[in-house]
């Protein structure tokens, strides 16, 4: 993908739309399909490598309208089947195609609470866009209608216009719900429960709310002000926020129910326990979990060398182990912190990478070097215990495994040494044990995920859970879907 400046994309869209506006007949499906895919305007890769500002600028109104015109308004709406929260996608695209962006946003908000966030971070190519008829007709998911980009555009427009409509809140019921964690699942529960007139208090262990949206996902992909706007909205709705408050330690979960007068509790604490590879040398200085590296860089602002007190480890050569979004985030953060070479090391091929296609493309544009079918075997340090190199091993693809992806098989005797100063392990998270360990009777799977029934209810009465603590590491939109379900159950419970 070669870089096209934002201005050029904007101009092309104006011309294209102008031609369509002058027509007297409606567009035929064939004509809709032939409208060029509207590329996302971005910062020049050479420039953005040196800053933490958002990479994607977002569509212009003309681009949003054009992209929406590409939608064929399929009767069976396969895209909706691909959306975990079943947004009326043809509905909002139809409104956007007519330039009715506010209506479009309202339609999305009937199903999704966080369109500005999801438009940015959802893996659309394996959700709604995977099933898009346009993409199928053009034989490439890359050419499907860019549903996420339009979603982002209408959500940004609403927020920036300041016309965000405050949700209607039913009369106070006198009931009270505790929401543990402040990530996407918890935000959803807080909003949905508060709307029914119940009092909501959120509890966050960090000094700022947002969970993975603020400590994990970097500013250049999801600006903090967008997450903050969601909390401003919650605060205006009357949701109370307690930061620096870790349930299980500062207060036991059961005390919330038995002593503090909460009628129900939602646990949305996420998958915060980084996995390591169990290889030699993992405790060397210079080896980090992606969580640590990203938290230092994002939440603690270590990229601001002058002002931030939190240091970050900086070396010339950085390797990131893994192929998901977190791996891309870590690699691109390392680029911005001034590393000379940043390597992604992944034991399968690019097709199997779980990261969003756009993030992989952006990482490449920014100069991240990809090493596929390769994995770290051992980390090697100097006499001071500092990482100096890593032993790697080459792989080939074998038979498909349980996940349907072809299993990587190591090639015997293919070991080689790569000089490296920093290694970031980005192979996922296990569920955080803090609440299960401190809450008697709360049942978990052998992997530590909280077990819930079809209503999002745990083994304990009046205690619900959702998001990564239930699913294992998943996506923002799935967490939101889980939150919706749990909130509905809580509202049901409190109606009685």
């Amino acid at each position, binding site marked *: 993908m070669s870089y096209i400046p934002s201005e050029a994309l904007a101009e092309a869209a104006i011309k294209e739309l102008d031609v369509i506006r002058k027509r007297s007949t409606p567009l035929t499906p064939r004509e809709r399909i032939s409208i060029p895919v509207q590329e996302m305007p971005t910062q020049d890769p050479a420039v953005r490598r040196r800053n933490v500002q958002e990479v994607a600028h977002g569509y212009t109104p003309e681009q949003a309208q054009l992209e929406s015109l590409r939608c064929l308004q399929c009767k069976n709406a396969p895209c909706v089947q691909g959306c975990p929260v079943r947004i009326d996608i043809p509905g909002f695209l139809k409104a956007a195609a007519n330039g009715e962006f506010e209506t479009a946003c309202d339609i999305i908000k009937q199903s999704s609470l966080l369109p500005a966030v999801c438009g940015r971070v959802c893996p659309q190519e394996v959700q709604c866009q995977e099933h898009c008829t346009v993409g199928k007709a053009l034989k490439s998911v890359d050419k499907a209608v860019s549903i996420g980009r339009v979603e982002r555009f209408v959500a940004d427009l609403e927020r920036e216009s300041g016309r965000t409509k405050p949700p209607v809140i039913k009369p106070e019921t006198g009931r009270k719900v505790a929401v543990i964690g402040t990530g996407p699942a918890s935000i959803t529960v807080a909003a949905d429960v508060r709307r029914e007139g119940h009092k909501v208090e959120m509890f966050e262990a960090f000094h700022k709310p947002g969970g993975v949206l603020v400590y994990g996902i970097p500013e250049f992909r999801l600006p903090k002000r967008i997450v903050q706007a969601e909390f401003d909205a919650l605060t205006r709705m009357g949701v109370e926020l307690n930061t620096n408050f870790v349930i299980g330690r500062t207060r036991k979960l059961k005390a919330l129910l038995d002593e503090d007068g909460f009628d129900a509790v939602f646990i949305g604490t996420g998958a915060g326990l980084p996995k390591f590879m169990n290889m030699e040398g993992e405790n060397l200085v210079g080896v980090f979990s992606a969580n640590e590296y990203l938290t230092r860089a994002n939440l603690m602002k270590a990229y601001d060398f002058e002002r931030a*007190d939190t240091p970050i480890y900086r070396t010339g050569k950085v390797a990131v182990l893994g192929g998901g979004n977190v791996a891309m985030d870590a690699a691109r953060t390392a680029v911005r912190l001034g590393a000379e070479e940043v390597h992604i090391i992944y034991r399968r091929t690019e097709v199997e990478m779980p990261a969003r296609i756009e993030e992989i493309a952006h990482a490449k544009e920014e100069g991240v070097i990809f090493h596929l079918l390769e994995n770290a075997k051992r980390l090697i340090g100097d006499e001071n215990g500092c990482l100096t190199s890593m032993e790697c091993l080459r792989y080939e693809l074998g038979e498909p495994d349980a996940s349907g992806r072809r299993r990587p098989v190591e090639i015997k005797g293919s070991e080689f040494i790569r000089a490296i100063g920093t290694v970031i392990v980005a192979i996922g998270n296990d569920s955080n044990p*803090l609440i299960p360990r401190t809450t008697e009777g709360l049942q978990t799977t052998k992997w530590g995920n909280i077990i819930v029934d079809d209503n999002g209810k745990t083994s304990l009465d009046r205690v619900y859970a959702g998001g990564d603590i239930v699913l294992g590491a998943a996506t923002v939109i799935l967490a939101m879907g889980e939150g919706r379900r749990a909130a509905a159950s809580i509202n049901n419970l409190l109606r009685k």
Partner: protein
Amino acid sequence: MNRILVKKQLSDDVYLMRLAAPHIARERQPGQFVILQLDNEFGERIPLTIADADPVEGSITIIFQAVGKTTHNLADKQQGDSVQSVLGPLGQPTHIEKFGTVVCVGGGIGVAPLHPIVKGMKAAGNKLIIIVGARSRNLIILEDEMRALADEFIVCTDDGSYGRKALVTEPLKEVCERVPKPDLAVAIGPPIMMKFCAETTRPYGVHTEVSLNTIMIDGTGMCGGCRVSVGGQMKFACVDGPEFDGHKVDFNNLMQRLKAYRKVEDHAHHKCHLEAEVRKKEQILS
């Protein structure tokens, strides 16, 4: 926001503060710690042991040495000022029961985290031999408090300016040689001290608990920055610790990991000293 209710200087660069933190005061147990942050925008998060707590007043006591930027800035704060963020109580509480004879070793500022453990051990009916050590006399803290809890109290200094001129391992060895030997040892202080305490007790088979103060960010298991090798297994000091079996801890790796940011910190430390000097000059001039 947590208000500073009381501030006391215990020695040259060691301070005691009582902070308003009613939730933490109510829940905390010996061995636990807090993470403190002075500025929510650009400040760093540092772990500090809870030296004491008063659930009635709703306060916790912290004791810290002004060594880095955050602890220097904290030391500059006065009674009535506030700390922006205090999170806790974190970590597993100390396992306290009636063991019999417990030898407790505190080195330097390590006496602060040791104090609540000693109090708990005393209350559980243990006989306590307390060894307190520091480089020199002016660095000995909480002497009266510790002496009051001890059945036997030994002070030593490296330079001989107070008590015995010895490292804490010397009296520790003597205690281990007694018949019967102590049932448990607890050693808290600089990593190098804990390492040698563990080496001292090892031949005698005296189980030795140490409390590790590692680099950490969230303190809830999320970052893994605090990982230590214990018996060849990876443990997180924040959720699995901070106390571990001293005979199993890889102290060399721990000490190396503590130096990870030394270069950056030296720079920041230097800068903050310079700034302090400039402030002084400005005060003189104004």
